[in-house]
């Protein structure tokens, strides 16, 4: 068993929305191990991106980390760290790749000067850093010289995203959070970026958290997959197990709602109903209004997290009795 690099415990994030407080992430626990890629899947608004922003301490002004722990093996719990302290671990201990809709680069500086700024911020010799950056850029099939002398707007979205990944990796952080890194890209660029992530994953000890709304994007890359629903982590399991033997009704229905190349003539099944609005959550299990297996207790109490094994867990009262049924949905 490999070492745990990041331990997220009982994380709660609240947002202030017109006087109201809304829990975007509610009591989520998750651990990442060295060299592992964990997929985090959920619909929009399920809190998966908020979880990543909270882990980076980059929540927007309205957001607040209410409680919980974010412990890095190397430096300890960073959940209460101040901004100056955080800026010392961001980038070189824990880093993030953003959705490519907007560039995360300064539009009026060349990429070389932005790399230099990154190295200086972490007290790294600029020349040595640039050598490493060039090597990584080469691995991404980009011409380092051209990239470094370019301004962000001179690159395509796919190129920018690959440079963004290099930025997040060049300081060899322990944890890399990838927030929908391929969502805004065309299919070909998606492919290139996914190949790059796969290639880099095999060569680094860093733990990666790949956030996406699309099972098919992450299932070929991940060792484990977590499923989020309305701010809660509802299931976490090794990828293969999650597909074959889902323990949570939502997971079962969600995986069956994704088209698959291998199973040709299966009919796609949607999940009836809409996910609840975070300011108007149902009592008890949040999936209960849409759940075909719902019981009285599901509507009254929130199901606790049941640890099935070291790398599997589920938040459902009926997981043990439903297991077989769900595998055949």
């Amino acid at each position, binding site marked *: 068993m490999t070492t745990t690099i990041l331990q997220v415990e009982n994380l709660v994030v609240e947002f202030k929305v017109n006087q109201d407080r809304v829990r975007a992430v509610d009591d989520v626990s998750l651990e990442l191990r060295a060299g592992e890629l964990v997929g985090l899947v959920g619909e929009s608004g399920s809190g998966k991106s908020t979880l990543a922003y909270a882990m980076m301490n980059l929540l927007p002004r309205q957001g607040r980390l209410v409680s919980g722990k974010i412990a890095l093996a190397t430096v300890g719990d960073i959940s209460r760290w101040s*901004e100056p302290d955080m800026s010392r671990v*961001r980038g070189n201990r824990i880093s993030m790749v953003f959705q490519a809709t907007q560039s995360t680069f300064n*539009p009026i500086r060349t990429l070389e000067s932005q790399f230099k700024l*990154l190295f200086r911020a*972490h007290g790294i010799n600029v020349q040595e850093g640039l050598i490493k950056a060039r090597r990584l850029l080469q691995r991404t099939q980009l011409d380092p010289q051209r990239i470094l002398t370019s*301004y962000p707007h001179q690159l395509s979205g796919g190129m920018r995203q690959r440079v963004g990944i290099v930025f997040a990796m060049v300081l060899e952080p322990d944890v890399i959070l990838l927030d929908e890194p391929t969502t805004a890209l065309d299919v070909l660029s998606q492919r290139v970026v996914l190949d790059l992530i796969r290639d880099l994953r095999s060569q680094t000890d860093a733990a990666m958290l790949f956030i996406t709304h699309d099972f098919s994007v992450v299932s070929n890359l991940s060792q484990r997959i977590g499923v989020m629903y309305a701010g809660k982590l509802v299931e976490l399991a090794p990828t293969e197990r999650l597909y074959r033997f889902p323990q949570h009704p939502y997971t079962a229905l969600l995986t069956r709602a994704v088209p698959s190349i291998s199973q040709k003539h299966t009919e796609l099944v949607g999940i009836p109903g809409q996910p609840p609005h975070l300011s108007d959550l149902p009592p008890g299990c949040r999936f209960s209004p849409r759940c075909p297996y719902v019981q009285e207790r599901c509507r009254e109490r929130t199901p606790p997290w049941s640890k099935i094994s070291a790398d599997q867990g589920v938040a459902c009262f009926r997981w043990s009795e439903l297991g077989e049924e769900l595998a055949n949905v």
Partner: protein
Amino acid sequence: MIWRRVGLALVMIWMTVTATFFIVRLMPGNPATFELHVLLKRGVSYNMALQHVKTLYGINLHQSLLVQYLQYVGNALHGNFGDSILYPDIPVIHLIGKALPWTVFTVGTALLTSFLIGVSLGTVAAYRRHGWLDRLLTPLAAILNGVPNYLTGTILLFVFGVVLGWLPQNGPYSAAITPNVSLAFLISVLRHAILPIGAYVISQWGSWFLLMKSSTVSTLGTEFIVGARSYGIASSVVMREYVAPNSMLPLFTNLVLSIGFMFGGSVFVETIFSYPGIGYLFSSSVSGRDYPLMQGLFAVLTVAVIISNLVADLLYVKLDPRISLEDAA
């Protein structure tokens, strides 16, 4: 590309110079008839008066407007705008040359001061939005921005010049001092410049403040600021390298353009303080029907505005890599 832009500027200068020549002549009344009426009122006979006026101004009534225009343009190319009528026998260009430094000194200092005040306070207000400083300065800036500089000038003159008597009321320096390179002269010049500069600054800083605040607020909301923080760039560096340059970009155009407009804006303030700059010269040339002087001043004004436009365009291309000269033209 750059030559096209320069050529365009030259054509614009020619057009305004031409328009000025004809528009000035459309104004009712002229210095000759004015003088004529003065003489007639004194009881001089009409023919005698006409003869007198002709010799006084050396007017050749046989020249057509077109010939006058061609002569004017030809001379203007050599920097010769003729002799002043109001100040007989002094070349217009000398009058302008003597007035220009005073205006450049006062208006230039005021522009720089209000820019610096506005930009720094605007940044603070944007960073601490809804803080006490923001709540105090934003309405104040909006109000002062709407108060014209002749009103603030009059109030300043009344309060500090008349009631308190702390500062001189008019002129560029004390009449008791002969201009030379001495500390006494320098102090006198500064003391005389304080009130005019104050009048400009009070009515100008607000617009820089409001512009900078809104520009900074929108920059702070951009993805690349979050990006920079996610790479571990310290807040102070983010502000210096990311927020400030990007927020100041749109203000920069305004700054360069204001240099062109500063002569026009000086008319009221310099008249109030009898400050011998371009604005003062302007108002006296208009009230005295001094065509050559007016034409010369208009030409200087036009050239200043058009050249500052040109400089703004060319510099912006240097400052913002996303803009090319094709866009600017």
